[in-house]
Structures are given as structure tokens and as C-alpha cells.
């Protein structure tokens, strides 16, 4: 067995020499903004909103979405040439951690929008990116939020939808049929985070349900399109303010100009349709799972901070709890969990910067030219970036030039991050409750909410079991020729 490659082992060391120094100061600025937003907007409303949703699970918190919109948070990380704020994508994770440390649901109301952004971006379809992202930016000017969701999970396919090996054996049911000038979509998507609050829905479906990985299509569907409707909002244990929606497609016509990726667009690529589908999924999850890692770090931190505050003000057996040795060790354990979760999302983002999503945007020439180019010049370039040329350039850079080993490195690290950080978040919720006893059970002490909210992190963006298998496929077992991921031996 060969030792692990340097590039797998020490991603951050490798990245430190190549990442533009300007990203550090920019990330510091973004983190400060995250802290201010968490302090001024999120913490004061988190409990009240959670309780309200316990009473009325159908409530949609437009008030928060509008506030986040006013703060510019829905376009902050979109490229400037598409009208966005142009902040580097890596800086989003520390921002998300700050918000999550106060309320995971509200963090999702922001972060899940970027799951939609990331999915559309992973198609590298510059024309649709320009159209949709411009609407998001415009929405901030008009005060009418324009969010993007990702519609992938189906009633009979959760885990299966995120891995081509499983997809073909699964029970995918969202059918896409070719018709004049576009496609018709039929099917139901479930557990779609932010569904009811979103204007655009990046939707995955399949032309041939018996060969989904070879016929996958990505469409941008706008709320209000005939044949598209919202179903129920799920009754969740936590993350209540972030609605999990059912989306219904009934002969929903989507014109060609909103087809982000289909077989016709795959034809110019050297990878097969199936391979490209997996590559696109890997692009999406390599960033989204780092984002979930940041959610996890935030939830773990929130639990830790509340536990520390409690221990600092409560006497147990006549001594402040924080001065009991066992409590100090437990709090140190919780602090470690937060730090480990943070390290995993940063390491994953370094991998994305060197080998994945942020490869182009994170390069020094691109970063500085976008950061310092005057807005009018970028506005003039917008047309260029929204053209077929830009789509070809993006796809050449990100799809064609990405090696298989690079895709595996980003996807593997993302899975490692996802299950590590979210397991640690749940762990810290448990530990905080054990430390606080009766006080921790109370909603007004916030810790029980952190635990309830954190549990979902182990499930979405691929269950932690799927992510362990993906890590095995991409890195842990990659050199083991005999290994066959996603097969499993038959039951005796």
C-alpha cells in the first residue's frame, strides 16, 4: 500500500503559498460582518422564531429573509460580473459558522441559497448564471429577495440521488421529457430546503428512469412557472425556520434557455454523460458539504458557548461548575470539537481552491482583477461573461481540466468534513446538555435547540453513512484495487 500523497495529506500547507494574501483580510472582514449579523439580527430572534414555528409550522419567515437581503447576504458571494458582491467563496464558511453558532435555521436560510448558487455554478452554464444571479442582485436593490433552492431529493430516493452508482439501482422518479423548444418535467421533490422561499429551483431529473445517471438533466425552474407548485412544508424536529418543502412538477414546461445541463451540452466534453454527472455532483457537494461542516462547527460552538456561560454562573456542590476539574475537561473537549470541525471545513475549502470550485476564482490574477476592477468595467464585461464563450471557458477550466484525482480529493475531503463536523456538532449538543442538566432542557437556555437543529446535519447533503462511503471511494480505499464502493456483499 502506498503512503497517502502529499497533496491529500497537507492541503492547507500546499495552499498557503498559492492563495492570494488579499483573501485573508477579506475573510477577516466577512467574519466580522458575520459576528455583527449574528449579534444584532440572529440571536435576538432565534428563540422566538423557533417557538413560533413550533406553534405554527407553516409560518414562512419572510421578515428574516428580507433582513438578510437588506444586508446584501444573498449576492455577497456572487461574482461581481454577475452583479454580486464578489467576495471570495472561502470566506463564506467562517461567516456561516458565526451565524450557526446562534441559530442553524437562520444560517440555513442564507447558506442553502448558496447550495442553489453552487449547483447552477457547477453546470458552468454562464448564460443561465448571468440571468439568475442578476435577478438575485436585482432583488437586493428592489427589496424583493430572490433565493435559489436545489431540488434533488425524491420520495423514493434520498441517498441514491447523490451518487451515480446508487442512482442507477435506485428508484428515481422525476421524469424529464423532450418537447418542442425545451423539456417537460413530471414528478415530486421532497425535503427541499428553502423551497417555499425560493424564486428559482435548480432541478435534477432524468430522461430515462431506467438509466438515470446517463440521462440526468439540470434545469432552472422559476416559481410561478405553469405546472410547478408547492406542496406541504414538513414538520421537523429542528431547523424549523428553514422550511423543508415538497415541490410538485406536473407537465411543467422548461424552455431550452433554462436548461443548465443536458446531453446536448455534454457532447462537447471528453467525459461520458455518466462521468460528467458524477463530476457535477462532486462539484456541488465538495462545496456544500464544506458549508454543512461550517454549520456543524457553528452548532458545536453555540452549544459550547452556552455550556461555558452556564458553568461560569452556576454553583454545584458549593463550587462554581467551571472550577470542577471534570467540567473543565468536558469544556475543553467541546472546544476541541469546535476546532476540529473548523479545521475540516477549512481544509476542504483549501482543496476546493486548489483543485475544485474555487480554482479559477481563487487564483491571484483573477481574484485581484475582480476585487479591484471598477464596477462599470465589470458591468461592461457582464455581457461577455454571460456568453457561450464564457460557458466554454468555464467548462474547459473546471470540467475538462480537472483530473479524476483532483475531483476525488475535493469530494473526499468534503465528505470527511461533513460527517466529522456534524457528528461533533451533535456530540457537543449532547455534552452541553449533560453539563447543564435541568437548565439545558429549557428552550430559553438555547442548548436544546442546538442539539435538535444539529441532528439534521447528520442527514442532509448525504447521510453521514453515505459520506463515509464516499470518503472510502475517493481517498481511504482509492488505492485498494479489490475494493468496490457502493456494492456491499450480499446478505448471507
Amino acid at each position, binding site marked *: 500500500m502506498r503512503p497517502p500523497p502529499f497533496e491529500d495529506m497537507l492541503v492547507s500547507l500546499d495552499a498557503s503559498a498559492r492563495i492570494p494574501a488579499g483573501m485573508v483580510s477579506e475573510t477577516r472582514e466577512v467574519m466580522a460582518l458575520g459576528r455583527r449579523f449574528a449579534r444584532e439580527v440572529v440571536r435576538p430572534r432565534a428563540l422566538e422564531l423557533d417557538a413560533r414555528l413550533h406553534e405554527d409550522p407553516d409560518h414562512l419567515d419572510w421578515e428574516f429573509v428580507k433582513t438578510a437581503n437588506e444586508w446584501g447576504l444573498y449576492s455577497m458571494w456572487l461574482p461581481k460580473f454577475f452583479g454580486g458582491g464578489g467576495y471570495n467563496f472561502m470566506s463564506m464558511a467562517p461567516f456561516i459558522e458565526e451565524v450557526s453558532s446562534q441559530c442553524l435555521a437562520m444560517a440555513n436560510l442564507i447558506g442553502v441559497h448558496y447550495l442553489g448558487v453552487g449547483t447552477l455554478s457547477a453546470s458552468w452554464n454562464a448564460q443561465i448564471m448571468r440571468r439568475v444571479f442578476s435577478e438575485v442582485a436585482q432583488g437586493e436593490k428592489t427589496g424583493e429577495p430572490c433565493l435559489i433552492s436545489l431540488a434533488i431529493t425524491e420520495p423514493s430516493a434520498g441517498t441514491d440521488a447523490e451518487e451515480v452508482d446508487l442512482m442507477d439501482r435506485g428508484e428515481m422518479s422525476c421524469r424529464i421529457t423532450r418537447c418542442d423548444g425545451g423539456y417537460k418535467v413530471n414528478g415530486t421533490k421532497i425535503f427541499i430546503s428553502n423551497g417555499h422561499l425560493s424564486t428559482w429551483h435548480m432541478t435534477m431529473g432524468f430522461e430515462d428512469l431506467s438509466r438515470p445517471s446517463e440521462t440526468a438533466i439540470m434545469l432552472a425552474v422559476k416559481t410561478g412557472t405553469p405546472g410547478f407548485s408547492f406542496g406541504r412544508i414538513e414538520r421537523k424536529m429542528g431547523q424549523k425556520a428553514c422550511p423543508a418543502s415538497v415541490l410538485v412538477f406536473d407537465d411543467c414546461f422548461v424552455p431550452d434557455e433554462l436548461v443548465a445541463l443536458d446531453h446536448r451540452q455534454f457532447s462537447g466534453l471528453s467525459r461520458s454523460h455518466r462521468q460528467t454527472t458524477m463530476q457535477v455532483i462532486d462539484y456541488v457537494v465538495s462545496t456544500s458539504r464544506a458549508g454543512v461542516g461550517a454549520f456543524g462547527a457553528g452548532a458545536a460552538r453555540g452549544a459550547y458557548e452556552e455550556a461555558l456561560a452556564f458553568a461560569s454562573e452556576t454553583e*454545584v456542590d458549593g463550587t462554581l461548575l467551571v472550577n470542577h476539574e471534570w467540567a473543565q475537561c468536558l469544556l475543553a473537549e467541546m472546544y476541541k470539537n469546535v476546532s476540529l470541525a473548523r479545521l475540516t471545513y477549512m481544509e476542504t475549502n483549501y482543496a476546493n481552491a486548489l483543485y475544485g470550485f474555487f480554482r479559477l476564482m481563487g487564483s491571484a490574477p483573477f481574484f485581484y482583477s475582480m476585487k479591484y476592477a471598477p464596477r462599470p468595467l465589470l458591468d461592461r464585461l457582464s455581457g461577455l461573461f454571460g456568453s457561450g464563450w464564457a460557458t466554454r471557458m468555464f467548462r474547459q477550466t473546471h470540467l475538462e481540466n480537472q483530473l479524476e484525482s483532483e475531483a476525488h480529493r475535493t469530494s473526499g475531503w468534503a465528505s470527511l468534513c461533513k460527517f466529522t463536523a456534524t457528528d461533533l456538532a451533535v456530540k457537543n449538543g*449532547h455534552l452541553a446538555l449533560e453539563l447543564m442538566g435541568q437548565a439545558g*432542557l*429549557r428552550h430559553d437556555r438555547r442548548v*436544546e435547540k442546538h442539539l435538535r437543529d444539529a441532528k439534521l446535519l447528520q442527514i442532509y447533503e448525504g447521510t453521514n453513512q453515505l459520506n463515509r462511503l464516499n470518503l472510502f471511494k475517493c481517498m481511504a480505499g482509492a488505492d485498494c484495487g479489490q475494493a468496490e464502493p457502493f456494492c456491499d*456483499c450480499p*446478505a448471507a
Partner: protein
Amino acid sequence: MLTIGDKGKKLLADAATDFANKALLPDREENDKFPFGPFFDQALETALELGFLHLALPESMEGMGPGITDLCVVCDRLCQVDASMAGILFTNSFAQRLLLAAGEAKTLEEAAGQDSARKVLLAAPVFNNPGEIRHLARAEKDNKNRWRLTGGVPYVVLGGVAARAVLPAAVEGSKGFGWYVVNANSPQIVKSATVFSLGLHACPAVDMTIDGTPATPLAGPEDGADLFRQVADAMQLVAGAMAVGLMKGSFREALDYSKKRRQGGKRIVEWSELTRILAEMSIHARMAEAALDRACQAADHGEHSWEHLAAAVSLTACSLACEATTDGIQVLGGVGYMKEYGQEKRFRDAKQIQALLGLAPMRRIKYLRRMLR
């Protein structure tokens, strides 16, 4: 709980299961909405009719005698379906046992003889060890030499439902504390809105602010810690039984679902990692159940050091239940996180139950310190 070879316990267990399936299961999601939905008074009255509110009482008060096993059997069965009612039984029994331990039969008989559940029930702050975290009222005698309580006691379970409450209080300047019975509906007690909690929503608690309400002391004003320890030694087995019930309920629902749900072309129970998780859940549940059964026998027979065994079993069962119910959601994936299934409630309830009788880490430390004495 194992009831093999004991007809009486088998009958009791079957009655509890029947009650859980008929009176609790159909409205489980609805009942869990409390305080944003109605309280399940009807189910509580049925529990009274079945004698579940008297299980901890002596036979002379229509109870099952001094043993703890019967209460454990019932709570195990209830928790497989819905733990809130078991939380009520726990609280009521804890308070009843405090009265019994203090020899306060008169108040107990009076409460037990009432004809409606709310009048029978006793409230108590069962999630705190008052010797550990001193959430105590102030006890003082008035000019007629009657005890009165003043101050605040948080998280009094059933405080908004029960007719009487058993509260801890200390005389000014004292390092100890005592237990006192008060009229929970006394005009000198102001109750908060129901405390919105992690789990056991239908076993609600309130914070009490007290202004000189008359109180009946249980034993002496410094005897509270001894009484608590005496009662908690046995009641921790009931917490363990609740944990075991949750583990079994969680495993059963996970197994049933995994036989139906397909993923990657086959039933998820056929994927070996999931099989391993299910196996782990089952192994832990069985192990905890067997250990609990043994610990109950030891307690009922007053075997040497039964309290240590009870603590070991209770702490382990509660901890395993938190793990098992976490996995119980995971097996179901997204739907396990939704209210329509029982798994998310079991997850919350297990964590809540782990907090019974005080901080779990302190209970562990005290377990060893007592052994070293």
C-alpha cells in the same frame, strides 16, 4: 423489562402496552404539541383507573408495595410508545416515595384517595438534585409556628397540573435543606407559563414563585439530602427503565422501516453498515434490559450494595438510549427527523430522561465516591 415466569408482572406489562397503544399512540404527535395544544387529561384519567398513579404506594393505599420493579415494567412499556406519560408516573412516584420515606402517610393517603388524576398527582422538581444545585425556596416559621415557603423553585414538573407539590427549601443560613408539601394551587404561588422544553412535552413543568405559602415539612429541615438519596437510589432504576423502553421502541421502528425502505436497489436492512447499526441498537437494548432486570431484583430484595448496581445500570441505560435514539433517527434518514414518526420524539425524550435526578456527570462521580466510602 423481563417478565418471564412472573404472571403478575406479565399482566401488568400487557396492561401498560395495551394502554400505550390505545390511549397514547393515536394522539402521540398531537399530545406532544403541548403547551401549544391540549393536555391529555383523558389518557391521564385512564392511567388513574388502571392504577398506574398508585404503583409506588403501599398495598394499603391500593399500590403495589415497596418494590420498584412494577413501576419499571410499566414505564418501560409506556416509553416504547410515548415517554411523556412515564415522565408523569416518574414524577408522581418520586414525590410519593419522598412522602413515604418521611413517614408522611396522612398527606399521601389524602392525595391517593382523590377521584381525579389532577387531584391525585404530586409535582416535584425531579430534574435537579437540590443538594447539588441549590434551587431552593426559603423555609421559615410564622408567628403561629407554621412552616411557610418563600422564593423561587424552577422547573417543577407537573407544577401546572398537580394539586400538590413537593418542594425543596432551606432555612436561612442552613447548608442543608428539607422537603415540604404545598398546595400547588395556593394563591401565594405564582406559576410561570409552561416551560418549553426539549422533550416530554406532555409531562410539563413550570417555574414557581412563592410568597409565604403554608407548607408541611417532610422529616426535618436538614433531612432533604438523605431523603433525596434514599428515593433517588430506587427511582434511578425507573429512569433506566424509561431509557430501555425508548431504546426498544426506537429499534423496533427502525427495523420496521428498514425492511420497507429501498435504497440502491435493495431494502436498506440488507446494506451491511445499516445492519450493523441496527444490530448495535438491539444489542444495547437487550443488554440494558437484562442489566436493569437484575438491578431491579437486587433492589427489591435489598441485596448488599444494590444502590451501586442501580446507579451503574441507570447511568449506562440512559447514555445508551441517547446513542440508540440518535441512530434511530439516522436509520430512517429524513423522515426520522419529521414529526410523523416516533423517532425524533424518542431522541428528545431520551436526552430529557438522562437529566432526571441531577447532572449525569455528577451522578457518575458520586457513584464512585459512595463506593469508596
